[in-house]
């Protein structure tokens, strides 16, 4: 079925991605991520000594602060903070630096659709920039089910408001290069790439639609993984990290 999107993209095409690391002078790690016009800036401070009151001191603690572009901080921001915190906690190795806190501040520069996935990608790159130990990278993507039944990836704000019936934010582990003969590490018999870290859904969609979203999202996450790897390779050859 031919799908008509305003900016001429096909169903499964992502917007142009751009990522740069180490852009903030004082932060211990920072990254800016943009997908089309959506742009998010993430800064990481830490690990610093001490954990918060109700947190387990045998593990590292992650604290997320979400700063919207305009307006006061309210419940939607707290929800984003909670989703980001849980996602990043499952990606970072928390036992390496016990009794420390790592703070991640996410600043929305422009919101043009797929905001939370962009924020997750930016936060993940900022953690890599700061050298926080991680099990693997997190790759986030937004799939939405339109009113007419087809599934599109990476919607813009216009598409989100007009066309959507339901959408899902999906976060997958990145695809991994490995020397093992059978590929990456297996968790319960399946390669890590087949797993899923986070899934946030809004609206009503059928189970079949959801599984279709997962499949399309996973395919797109491979392309995103490649982009991340190329970006890290490029910037490691001309790194500029003067304090």
């Amino acid at each position, binding site marked *: 079925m031919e799908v008509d999107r305003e900016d001429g993209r096909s169903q499964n095409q992502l917007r142009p991605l751009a990522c740069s690391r180490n852009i903030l002078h004082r932060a*211990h*790690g920072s990254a800016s991520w943009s997908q089309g016009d959506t742009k998010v800036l993430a800064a990481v401070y*830490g*690990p*610093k*000594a001490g954990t918060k009151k109700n947190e387990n001191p045998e593990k590292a603690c992650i604290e997320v602060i979400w700063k919207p572009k305009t307006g006061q901080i309210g419940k939607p921001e707290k929800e984003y903070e909670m989703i980001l915190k849980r996602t990043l906690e499952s990606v970072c*190795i928390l036992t*390496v*630096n*016990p*009794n*420390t806190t790592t703070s991640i501040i996410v600043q929305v520069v422009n919101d043009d659709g797929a905001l939370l996935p962009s924020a997750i990608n930016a936060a993940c790159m900022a953690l*890599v920039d*700061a*050298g926080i*130990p*991680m*099990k*693997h*990278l997190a790759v986030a993507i937004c799939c939405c089910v339109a009113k007419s039944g087809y599934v599109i990836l990476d919607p813009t704000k216009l598409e989100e408001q007009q066309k959507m019936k339901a959408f899902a934010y999906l976060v997958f*582990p*990145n695809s*991994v*290069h*490995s*020397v*093992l*003969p059978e590929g*990456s*590490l297996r968790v319960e018999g399946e390669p*890590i790439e087949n797993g899923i870290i986070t899934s946030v859904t809004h609206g009503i969609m059928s189970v079949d639609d959801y599984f279709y979203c997962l499949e399309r999202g996973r395919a797109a996450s491979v392309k995103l993984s490649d982009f*991340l*790897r190329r970006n*890290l*390779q490029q910037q*490691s050859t*001309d*790194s*500029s*990290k*003067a*304090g």
Partner: protein
Amino acid sequence: MENKQSSSPASFVDSTVVPGDVVLDLSSMTSQTIKLGGGLRQDCDAISAMKAGTLRFSKPNKYWIESSQKRYVPCVEDTILGIVVDSKADNFLIDIKGPAMGFLPVLAFEGGTRRNIPKFEVGTLLYLRVVKANSGMNPELSCTDASGKAAEFGPLKDGYMFETSTGLSRKLLSSPTCPVLEALGKKLSFEIAVGLNGRVWVNAASPDTIVVVANAIMNSESLSGAQQIIMVDHLLKNIQ
């Protein structure tokens, strides 16, 4: 079924790895002892990367990931620059840009006894050696070398301290001498202390010299050897 040869570990050495990449398969090297450095972790039979960086290998059996960060991971026998934050009965608390404060025992000085405990103000810059660095514990520091002599450790007076990344500190301490330091040393006379935790202290007779040396070092991070020499020449021409 034909046994597919797994790609040898040499294929990842000296290339960029991303967190999650499995870089070594232990089941194919059963009779060797391997030493893992920073950035690698063991998951049953596979060694995977925790940080993004370049995988390095040094004969006979050491693997590590080289990357440059603004924060420091304490390692034993590193020489670092710390700043006194507080003093307790038994230790000084030192900020070393790591996940935990360092402890400097009050007696860890040459000829240190309970009667001649040094008095360091908050904010004093010290050149120290890491004695113990276990995960989860505060690292223990010392102002003497392994045999108990002072050996240049201790407070640094005057001068100027600036922060860099750990990668640049390692480059400055590498041998043969880093091109930027050599080029500066030919024309200027200055004293420098480099901490592996990303702090550098410079002292010279005049403030101009200190500023030129500090700027040259900060600029040299992303430049190659030849470019560093050109940059230093350019800076020195402007002040003379």
